[in-house]
């Protein structure tokens, strides 16, 4: 068994050094300016690549404003849009409103009001964590621990609240759907909460809870699901890899010196991005071999964004060829690309 382990280590190191050669070539590109600075909120950067139009949308939240930038791939055109959260009507009620827009931010297609108590209570009311599941559902996490499932028809804008999932006892932090695109995975949604608890779901007309992975009283601030593996980032700076349906812990990494704020996966290459308050972004490589039930992780690359508490980091494409980063009080999106 000892020899087998050693061989495995050598093999891993070989893989790591091979990929490292490629990845050490990430270099900083020209930043994209945004209209307002980013707020310190988990996963505070979204990237949407629209290949036919050769442009990429970036969105960052500043307090109650969403800042959008569309950047053409030739780097010549940037256009900005700001979406203001709809002010609750003081005269009628105080409710928090959640809005859904067309992907370019042009039209608000749907809004949903969260009930809030008339006098403020100690428990804040907010929505946090959002994910589309296939092309049918959008799931939104709520501070109460509930997850709202919206049914999105393939045509028209008749969005309806189809289900409320009430398994979490603490505020939802993040929600993620299976990103490999494979229909073979049993689980297609994972949700995380402030106590670090994870719920694994199978989507459908009625969502089915497949597994609950208990936390250890530490917030899981960012979560991803790839090829049946849950990748979870915590306030301790740790990353854990679990098999979604069994909850088996495959790996635990002491990854960052402060709270992790964002994880992302490039589904085609298995590259994993982690970013934290410690001003570091790290690139990792995941290998999932379902036949042998093995999951491995290797470290590839560090990038320090000096004096910045990073709040958002995302790959810009499915291979992880480029990634984008922003941080608290920063009015720019910094991009890194492989040479």
């Amino acid at each position, binding site marked *: 068994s000892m020899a087998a382990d050693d061989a495995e280590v050598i093999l891993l190191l070989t893989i790591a050094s091979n990929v490292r050669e490629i990845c050490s070539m990430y270099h900083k590109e020209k930043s994209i300016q945004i209209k307002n600075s980013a707020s310190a909120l988990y996963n505070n950067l979204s990237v949407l690549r629209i290949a036919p139009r050769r442009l990429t949308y970036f969105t960052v939240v500043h307090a109650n404003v969403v800042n959008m930038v569309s950047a053409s791939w030739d780097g010549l055109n940037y256009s900005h849009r700001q979406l203001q959260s709809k002010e609750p009507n003081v005269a009628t009620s105080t409710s928090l409103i959640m809005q859904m827009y067309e992907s370019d931010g042009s039209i608000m297609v749907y809004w949903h009001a969260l009930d809030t108590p008339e006098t*403020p209570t100690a428990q804040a009311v907010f929505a946090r964590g959002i994910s589309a599941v296939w092309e049918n559902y959008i799931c939104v996490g709520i501070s109460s621990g509930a997850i709202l499932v919206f049914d999105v028809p393939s045509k028209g804008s008749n969005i309806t609240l189809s289900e409320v999932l009430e398994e979490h006892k603490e505020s939802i932090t993040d929600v993620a759907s299976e990103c490999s695109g494979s229909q073979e995975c049993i689980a297609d949604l994972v949700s995380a909460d402030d106590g670090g608890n994870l719920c694994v779901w199978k989507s459908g007309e009625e969502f089915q809870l497949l597994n609950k992975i208990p936390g250890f009283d530490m917030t899981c601030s960012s979560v991803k699901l790839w090829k049946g593996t849950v990748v979870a980032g915590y306030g301790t700076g740790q990353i854990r890899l679990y098999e979604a349906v069994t909850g088996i812990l495959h790996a635990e990494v002491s990854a960052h010196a*402060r709270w992790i704020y964002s994880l992302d996966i490039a589904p085609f290459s298995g590259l994993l991005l982690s970013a934290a308050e410690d001003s*570091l972004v790290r690139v990792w490589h995941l290998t999932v071999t379902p036949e042998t039930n093995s999951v491995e992780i290797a470290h590839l690359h560090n990038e320090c964004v000096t004096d910045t508490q990073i709040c958002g980091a995302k790959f810009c494409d499915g291979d992880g060829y480029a990634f984008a980063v922003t941080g608290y009080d920063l009015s720019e999106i910094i991009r890194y690309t492989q040479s």
Partner: protein
Amino acid sequence: MSSRTLPLLFINLGGEMLYILDQRLRAQNIPADKAKKVMNDIITTMFNKKFLEELFKPQELYSKKALRTVFDRLAHASIMRLNQASMDKLYDLMTMAFKYQVLLCLRPKDILLVSFNHMDAIKDFVKDTPSILSQVDETYRQLIEMYTSLSNGEFQLIRQTLLIFFQDMHIRVSIFLKDKVQNSNGRFVLPTSGPVPYGTQVPGLIRMFSCTGEEVTRLQFSNGGNYTAALREGSFEIFGDRVTKLGTNMYSVSRPVETHMSGTSKSSAQHTKVSAAPNPLAKEELNLLAKLMGGLEVQKAGNADSGFRVNLFATDEEEEEALITRPDELSYGVINIQATKDQQANAELAKIMGEFTDSGEQSPSASSKGDDLLAMMDGL
């Protein structure tokens, strides 16, 4: 965002205000008995029972301008007077100091230790005055009751709420620049070295497990920093070592409050748009503010010879210059008061603030108390 943020914001900003005033009272050679009276009066006002009751109720944070109004009143709770440029500077120093502490604390829960550092120092200021001491001790009790049971996630939400409050403030502070903890663009230096937070491992280890839970592989990686193991956890009791130095008094005889105006970075100071549309929350905020400030019992300035003025600048000329050259984007212009609609709240606030005026400065003549308040608040 968290509705439990206001007490921590108030206590920590108040603590920083006391550090600065204490230092300035010494620097200006104010007689010891008068200086003592000022510190005691302000601390008594800060920890007034009725005021704290309002403060500790779950609520949203106030706008920057509303909070500034509260601290204007607090600074004038005694026989000492500050004119506008000095008050602006005092508020800048307080807010940047607490922003630094919120940003630099190793983990969200450390914000409570930072607060205890301020409380410990305040307690020391009034150690010879038992009646005020009991008020301070009562506040410790309330802090411990409200905060020690909160989860990590709830503390992070409080921290994020504070960071939104301090967002885009990049005022350069001499003492920070000198200590090399702030860059010339107003951003704070974030170290990639030193102890990791309590409960966190130094980054650099990957452990992989078999299906049966046995560790099968252990790999090291380069963490890109120079971290050391976590220190012991600070005390969350009334007494004890807080371990973190954040929130302790950074001013001393050898490290005075810099009276030299360091100015602001034009490039980083974002222009704050003042919305022309009436803020729908202004009325609600005014009501809350009126309620909160109802608890701030303030002494009259007293007769002319007992009152005095404190200057945050080296000379009066410097102070005047600062007032004129202060950039617009740093003015605390946020609230829109709708005088006609919000008369009730205005009247209440006006009643509370009736006796409160800057020494020598008269509000523009106004037809009613409500308008008077309006003018005064706009003048802040």
